[in-house]
């Protein structure tokens, strides 16, 4: 969270995340290069770099796209979500090395501008098997570039949440472009069943995870039952909410996160003021509700960000009766303190 702009905000978890990421990248590059040198001893350094960075970036994109649904299916994956931004930017840098080396190796030695050459060296756009697959990779890299440069805190703070999120949802388009970049590129040339199997397995895994997570969330957010006469709606059994976590409820058009902590229940808006992140998918850290996207924080009983920060959320009345959690979907103005339900 930020009351004022800061370049990079580091913490222990981010440093640990980045160290593990760097180590995994180094291990992959070493293993991949070793295998390539063993099976293709005549390989040139440029080709080795192109292959290693291309496969690594594509693999990283699969992991990045899997983190969101995994965290929704099982909260144990939530720590992976907190610093996904670094994962994404690192992936872009590796993909950029792949793209730049490709352009240098295959397009920079002719008498045509290298970037133009990407588009006109192969013009069989009507063919499937001979489609100019490098063009697909180029546009995917362009999307990843836009995402990487706007992932910085500066843009998070200054772009409208809708614009920022729409831009970053283009990662799905980039993924589709890259699937076909690989299928119409290396697979057509190499025809190896290993590549076909790996791309197919990755694609099916992501499709399965995203559709499974969407189904679970939809099921979890089933329409609310009829309210009691006092305006309260039943949300769930008290035992269904883990300690320091929340249950998300969609009632009467209100998106509410009901948190359980220190023997109390409080309800606030589920929508983070920063980038509309899902607060109910986060947890309470140091007494504050912490957004899983960018760690913006709020106090559960009044929805206010702790000083010196100024963001505020709507709050709701809650009660616990016979082990059942109830919430009144009539929102109080942002930052209004409401008594927590004690159990």
């Amino acid at each position: 969270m930020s009351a004022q702009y800061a370049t990079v905000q580091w913490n222990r978890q981010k440093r640990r995340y980045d160290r593990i990421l760097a180590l995994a990248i180094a291990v992959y590059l070493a293993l991949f290069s070793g295998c390539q040198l063993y099976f293709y001893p005549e390989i040139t350094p440029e080709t080795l770099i192109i292959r290693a960075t291309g496969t690594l970036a594509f693999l990283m994109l699969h992991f990045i796209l899997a983190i969101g649904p995994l965290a929704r299916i099982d909260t144990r994956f939530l720590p992976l979500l907190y610093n996904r931004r670094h994962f994404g930017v690192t992936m872009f840098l590796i993909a950029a090395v792949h793209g730049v080396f490709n352009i240098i190796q295959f397009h920079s030695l002719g008498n045509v501008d290298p970037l133009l050459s990407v588009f006109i060296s192969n013009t069989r756009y009507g063919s499937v098997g001979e489609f100019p697959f490098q063009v697909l990779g180029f546009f995917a890299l362009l999307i990843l570039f836009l995402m990487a440069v706007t992932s910085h805190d500066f843009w998070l703070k200054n772009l409208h949440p809708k614009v920022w999120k729409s831009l970053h949802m283009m990662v799905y388009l980039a993924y589709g472009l890259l699937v076909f970049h690989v299928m119409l590129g290396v697979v057509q040339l190499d025809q190896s069943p290993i590549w076909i199997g790996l791309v197919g397995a990755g694609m099916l895994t992501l499709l399965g995870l995203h559709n499974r997570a969407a189904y679970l969330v939809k099921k979890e957010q089933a329409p609310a039952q009829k309210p009691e006469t006092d305006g309260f709606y039943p949300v769930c059994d008290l035992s269904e909410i883990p300690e320091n976590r929340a249950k998300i409820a969609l009632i009467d058009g209100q998106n509410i996160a009901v948190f359980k902590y220190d023997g109390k229940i409080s309800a606030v808006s589920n929508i983070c003021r920063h980038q509309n992140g899902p607060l109910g998918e986060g947890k309470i850290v140091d007494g504050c509700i912490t957004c899983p996207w960018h760690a913006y924080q709020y106090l559960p009983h009044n929805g206010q960000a702790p000083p010196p920060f100024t963001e505020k959320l709507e709050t709701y009345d809650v009660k616990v009766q016979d082990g059942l959690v109830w919430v009144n979907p009539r929102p109080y103005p942002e930052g209004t303190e409401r008594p927590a339900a004690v159990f």
Partner: protein
Amino acid sequence: MVPELRKRHRQIWRVWAVLLPLGFVLSVLALPRKEYPDQLPAPVTAAWPIEGPVIKSGELTAGLRGKAGESGKQLEIVLQKPFKAPMTRVYWNEQFIGSLGAVGVHRYALDSALLAAPAFTLKIVDPVNGVVLNQIELQP
């Protein structure tokens, strides 16, 4: 995530659930027929004596090497400058016999079946762009 955004995510992945597998299957169906033998000739280790002329063409020279008592020959290509192509393949009378990579000496074993034709045509092909980069006629 706001419900509207969640819905957009859901819709995108539903569309991808149809389009991605469809494109994947189409890509597999479009795979070209394998145009080279399952097993390439064994790599050549020691060079035999030169037989016949060595022909220079562009950035490479090509010639045949033979040895008394051997029915086969060795094709030797010396590449002085790499091709500006993503991939280069070597064809002997339209038969794929191997790839051509870095600058240096490359030798390919030619068995008696490959030498049965009355004339030999050596082609260096860029299969990505479908271009013949170099073509040399060699004497039997």
